[in-house]
């Protein structure tokens, strides 16, 4: 397949529970910044978006990460088109 899609590389970012309330959005599309190869690389770019984003991602130890709907961590690789989610420890059941 030849690549005729010239759109810039991007990621879908999702937030849940109180992180969603802080960021003010449950899903946002962000360009994949140069030099970002894992979730940890991505975080400074997200905290720069707004004070609410900075607040949501302030304490990364309290945050769980999923990439493409599988649990990951700050070392999990990210690439164009991935869905990256940040959320607090879960409380269902």
């Amino acid at each position, binding site marked *: 397949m030849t690549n005729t899609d010239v759109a810039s590389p991007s990621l879908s970012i*999702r937030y*849940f*529970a*109180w992180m*969603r309330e802080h960021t003010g959005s449950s899903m946002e599309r962000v360009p994949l910044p140069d030099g970002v190869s894992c979730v940890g690389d991505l975080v400074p770019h997200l905290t720069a978006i707004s004070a609410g984003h900075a607040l949501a991602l302030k304490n990364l130890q309290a945050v769980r990460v*999923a990439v493409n*709907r*599988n*649990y990951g961590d700050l070392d999990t690789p990210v690439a164009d088109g991935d869905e990256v*989610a940040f*959320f*607090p*420890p*879960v*409380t*269902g*059941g």
Partner: protein
Amino acid sequence: MAVRVQTEDFDAGAETRALQDDTVGAIALFIGTVRGLRSDDGVTAMTLEHYPGMTESELERIENEARARWPLEDVTIIHRVGRLFPGDQIVLVATSSAHRKAAFDATEFIMDFLKTDAPFWKAEERDGETSWVEARKSDDDARERWDVDEAATGKS
């Protein structure tokens, strides 16, 4: 394989009848409900949020882990989302097996992992104020127990 995330209520009778089968023998079931005003909690309502897509895949992964550990005939996992009130049913887990101990253990295993791994979040209302429920250490401990058992008993 039956994993359902829904706003509607469910009926334990209908769910156990669906698991009843000539070969089964044992059905173990768990229901979690909303504790309310008369308990110490003082909760008047709660709202359950989840991560559509990931919720279902996590629940299916947990079901598959249980099936790998115990000889199960069938598994049902139902979790409600949206606004719920004290006394309402939240979650149902049911497993069927030829063996009673397998059904008990698998149902408890699924609940323990659902609590720590399935992406649901509860916001509780008290006196008109809404607050997000914090994860509990005791739930992490309940999950850890299964790995300890695995090492101690050679259960696979």
